[in-house]
Every structure is written in C-alpha cells, then in structure tokens.
C-alpha cells in the first residue's frame, strides 16, 4: 500500500485503498495476532504502522471484527492484569484462527495474481 505520486492525490484512490484494506480486516487482525497476544490499541497501532499511517482501519471496525472473530472461535479474549489504568482486553489466536488465516492468505495470493494480470501490471 504505497502511495504513487499523483494518482492518489484525489480522494477516490484513497477510498479505493481504504476499502480494499477494510475488506480484509478479519484476516489482517488474525495476521497481527499470529506471533503474540495483543490488545486493541496494539493491534490498531500495528496496522497503522504497517500502512505508514496513510490509511487506517477505524477502531469501531476493529471492535466489530473482534466480536465476529470471537463468536466464530477464531480468537479468544481475556482480560490482562494491569494494576493501574484501564484493564486491557487481550486477544489470542486459536488453532481455528490460524487455519482460517492460512486459507485466506492463500486465497489472497491467488486473487492478487489474478488482479495484477487483469490490470495488466508488469512483473506479475
């Protein structure tokens, strides 16, 4: 997701990229949780940092994703034991979550190749 000079100066391209990103919220969250358990703000920050701060997934979108993922058994939530400040709700990926993540990544790789070739990009 890097900005190409000129093309993304209008809002349409930005919205296009943000839409693409949002469409993969669940898989992105699973990917962020793959290495370690994290709480909401950490996940939000990881996504923001990865996009260079250009596009962000709204936090409300993320909370909705957490609810969905927990309901489907792809992540588990637990409260941390911080003594001061607010208690953090951590998320842990389950084995089911890892399987779904892997499957979605495979699908993404295939789709990316297809779209690249349809958009007539070189080097695909």
């Amino acid at each position: 997701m890097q900005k190409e000079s000129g093309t993304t100066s209008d809002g349409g391209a930005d919205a296009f990229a943000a839409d693409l990103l949002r469409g993969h919220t669940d898989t992105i969250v699973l990917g962020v949780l793959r290495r370690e358990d994290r709480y909401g703000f950490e996940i939000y920050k990881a996504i923001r940092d990865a996009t260079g701060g250009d596009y962000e997934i709204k936090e409300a979108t993320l909370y909705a994703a957490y609810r969905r993922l927990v309901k489907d058994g792809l992540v588990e939530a637990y409260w941390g034991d911080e003594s001061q400040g607010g208690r953090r709700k951590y998320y842990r990926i389950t084995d089911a979550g890892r399987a779904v993540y892997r499957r979605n990544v495979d699908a993404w790789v295939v789709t990316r190749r297809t779209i690249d070739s349809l958009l007539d990009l070189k080097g695909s």
Partner: protein
Amino acid sequence: MMTSTSVHRLLDEAFAGLPATPDVQDLKEEIRANLLDRVAELTAGGVAPDEAARRAVDELGDVRALAEEASGPAAEGGMLTPPTASPATSSAAAAAAARRPVPVARRYVAGVVVASAVALLALAPLVTVVALVLGNADRLEPGSYMVLAAMAVGLILSGPAVGWIVAASLMRETASSYGMPRRRATAYGVASALLVVGVVAGVESVLVFDRVYVVFQTAVPLLVAGGAWLAYLVATQTNRHKPWVLEQARQHAQVGDRFERDPAAAARFGIYAVVLWTLTGAAFLLVGFTVGWLWALLPALLGVAAFMLMVARMLFGADHGNDRPVP
C-alpha cells in the same frame, strides 16, 4: 488528572442511554483502556490533554452502533439475527462451504494404514514374547539374538509410527474442525510417541532384566516426560471447531437439558441411580463369593446397561426437540 476525567466523561457520553448489559460494559471497559493509551500517545506528541481526549474519542468511529449490537439479540448468539457481513469468515456462503464435508485425502489414509501396519508388526514379536512368558510362568532366554533384535525393532518403530498417526490426524481438516498447525500437531505426535516408547521400554526391560524395579530407569522417565508434555499441550489447546459447530453448541446450550428445566426429574434420577448401584454392588459380591468372580462381572455389566438405559430415558427421552412441557 485532566486527561483521564475528560476521556471518561466523553466515553460515558458515547455510551449514554444504552442498557448496561454485561456485554456493553465489557465493550466500554475495553474501549476505555485503548482510549487511555491513545491519549497518552497523543499527549506525548505534544497535544493538549483535552484536545487529545476529544481526538481519541473522535477517531473511534461509530461506537454507538457497535454498542447497540452488543446490547441487542446478537449478544445471546440467537439465530434470529441476520449474520453480520463478514467476507472473510462468516458470510452465509462461507458457512455453507465450511460445512461441506472435507474430502478424504488418499495420501493420509494410505499413510495411516502403513503406520498402523508398522506399529502392529513392530509390536507383534513383543506381544508374542510376553504371552509366552506369561503362559510358561518361566523366564525368557535373553541370549537369543532374534528376540533381542525383535525387541529393538519394536522399541524403535512403534513410537514414531503411533506419533505419526497422531500428528497427521490432528493436522487433517474435518467437517467440524480445522486442521491443527503443523508445529503443534508435531508436538502432540512426539509426546504420544514418548508415551508409547515408555510403555514398550518398560515391558522390554522387565523381560530382559527380570527385575520389576528397572522400570524406574526405563519406562517412568519417558512416561513422565511424555505425560507432562501432553498435559501441557492439552491445557494450552485453543479452539479448533468451525463456526457452525460453535453456533450449534450455543443453540443447544439455550435449549438446555431436561434436568436443568426439571429439578424433580434430576432428584428422581439421583435416587434411582443410588438404588441401582447398591443392588448391582450387592449382586456383584453375592455372585462373586458364591459362584466365582468371573461370573460376578455379569451383574456389573447388567448394572452398567441398566444405568445407560436410565440415562437415555430420563435425560434425553422426554423431549424430541419440541417444547412439550415436562410431566
């Protein structure tokens, strides 16, 4: 602290008027901790505390819709709510696809057959030797190289064969569960291989050395290690079920079983169970002392069968999925 009061006030405003259900409270507390972190980040970057609080809350997006969803019927996992749009995981099409039976992989089946054959062949000589020793009540001649070779083969092959079956089976996706990640499945396989090798090594060492206490040097360390590892894996195991299985479990939990709805039936069941097992125990002792202990297994078996029938009739018999009031 100006920052925190400001954040807490704005959060309260965002959640004002919503029913204070556990789910909503849960969401609010989760958001609170994340907001405080965001405010801390902004103020560290030089933003004034009040401004930071306002901006952090603004960035949240439409929290209200989220909280309303959390307070609504979706919170109970009811089936009346339409599935939330989720292209990645839980759209209706994905659910249907996930529910489709997973085709059996030929390589997996062939592998299991081969591994089972290897395990059986590796253990067959050992089982024969044990049977011979028990039959003769006599000691094995350990000088025979053939016997020692068969034992070595049993020791080396049986563990890996069983471990492979365990790992490969856990990695398989089924209609109701996702496959386990390779690393974790391998760990399960190694732990169960340790247990099998422990048992085989224990039996073989007793046969070879003709002393029972050698198991403390051969079998026990392996069994303890394998058992501890397996216990750790089971204790840290996370969900592998597919979403439709979880959904079904939620619906079943809502229905509840008969004893939950009818405590009198549960009490009756308890009394019947005590009577049944008392009679079975008495019959077991009576037959054991008079006829013989082998025949005493018969009343015990009858007792188990009667108990199972009782469970079937009393716990599951009354309702066939409808809401007929329990008599």
